[in-house]
């Protein structure tokens, strides 16, 4: 499905909403990466103590 065929969301706040979607995605992605690398880093720190 092309983007032009996507169902419409409200026009008036579409840009603001897209921005919020990108921001939420970014924050959640950072949390995911922090948990993944955080636990590995914690184990490395524990091993080198």
């Amino acid at each position, binding site marked *: 499905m092309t983007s032009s065929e996507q169902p*419409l969301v*409200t026009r008036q706040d579409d840009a603001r909403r897209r921005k919020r979607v990108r921001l939420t*995605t970014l924050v*959640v992605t950072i949390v*995911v990466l922090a948990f993944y690398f955080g636990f590995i880093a914690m184990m490395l720190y524990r091993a080198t103590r």
Partner: protein
Amino acid sequence: MAETPHTEVHAHADHDHDDHDHKPHGWRRWVFATNHKDIGTMYLVFSCLMFFTGGAFAMLIRAELFKPGLQIVDAGVFNSLTTMHGLVMIFGAIMPAWVGLANWMIPIQIGAPDMALPRLNNLSFWILPFAFLLLLSSWLVPGSAPAGGWTMYPPLTLQFGASFPMLIFAIHMMGISSILGALNVIVTIMNLRAPGMTLLRMPLFVWTWLITSFLLVAVMPVLAGAVTMMLTDHFFGTSFFNAAGGGDPVMFQHIFWFFGHPEVYIMILPGFGVVSEVIPAFSRKPLFGYEAMVYATASIAFLSFIVWAHHMFTVGLPTSALLFFMFATMLIAVPTGVKVFNWTATMWRGSLSFEPPMLFALAFLFLFTIGGFSGLMLAIVPADFQYQDTYFVVAHFHYVLVSGSAFAIMSGVYYWLPKWVGRMYDIRLGTWHFWLSAIFFNVLFFPQHFLGLAGMPRRIPDYAVQFADWNMVSSIGGFAFGLSQLLFPYLIWKCVRSGKPVEGTRAWEGARGLEWELPSPAPYHSWTTPPTEAMIARGAAH
């Protein structure tokens, strides 16, 4: 739609395509799917396939345990069967079923036109078949499929041959799929709710999924980190979990269960949501204590992060840790009790009827509570020393997961199926499916409590003769339970082919929520014009 959209959002009403099903056709519709309903359907079909694959493994396990001695498979294959049964059921059947239901229902329950990230949605689904192809094809490599249990404890799991990297990469792929799915749910709920759909007006299914998504985002990367470290231990000479190199195998258990216990709630919380929708609908009453249900769900999710070591009481923890984890585990009974009380209070003086969704929801309520009580028994440290690694644990987690997850999924499918396909299924056949499932579920798993208390260890293909009778009963229950599940896909197929068309928007008299404001079947593109305030208020009348 019966009502005129709210004036604030009228600017786009000229694009109201609710009645037009512009959709791609053929294989492209599914391979390049971005529509939440199509992706939800694919998740549910995939989950059904995996349910029967994992179920076939369970049938073989029960066939081997039908009587003492080795009859059908050798000990190595038996270990592979228990391992693969767990992995397939958890990651292939239950979790994708919930993601499928989330895909189908969340956008239409919050008045959104689709998920916020449709292409990512497509990716998160299409990762799954390849992950399971990789995992299941490990049966064909030298040394056969992984056999160290779904918990993958080192050093045992590190000793596998060719199946080890297949297992690790499959787990990574499943994890990525789950994380992307959770990300999509969070972003959708936080940003795409219709005007007027405040957080405390959201249906409980949406609430439980939002909380579940935060759990997924927090713990799936931890599992991924743990298996990445196992991978480097195996192939790159590190010693994270290798005692010979200064590592700590018990640390893997801590990390695994930091993921593993919230994972249990990942599989159950959406079930709480479904039951919180179904019981009010078939009691013809609003849900009792809506806000308390939300707070109880959040409390359970929080507590699930601080109880992980109750899975490893016998590894040699300090007494203070044993006490902390014992009491923290028992605390979970409080918010869970709030929920059970509220569901019961919802039914109190309700005008009850017992169609299949309600029957499965009630079975969930009774059987999940039994699983909860045996969980409390296991939370008691000295008692757990006795029960550890026995069939009592097997009985406990099947009461929690089969009745807590599988029955809740069936309740949800039976509840929303008429909305999805616009046809009503054969209620009589669904009722038969329920009674056969409920009866044989108990024949299958209740005797396992006795076996465990008598000392029968789990994950063994052979056993002492004093365990023979209850194992035979359990196996008979298993075969009957497995066969009765075949009614489920048959019923759905029959409904899609020749079910009686649903008249009006509501398939059930007491159903509330935005999904029941849409025509049946739900249009391919729904809520392209947001719902009105009146629609939201009608659905949110808690």
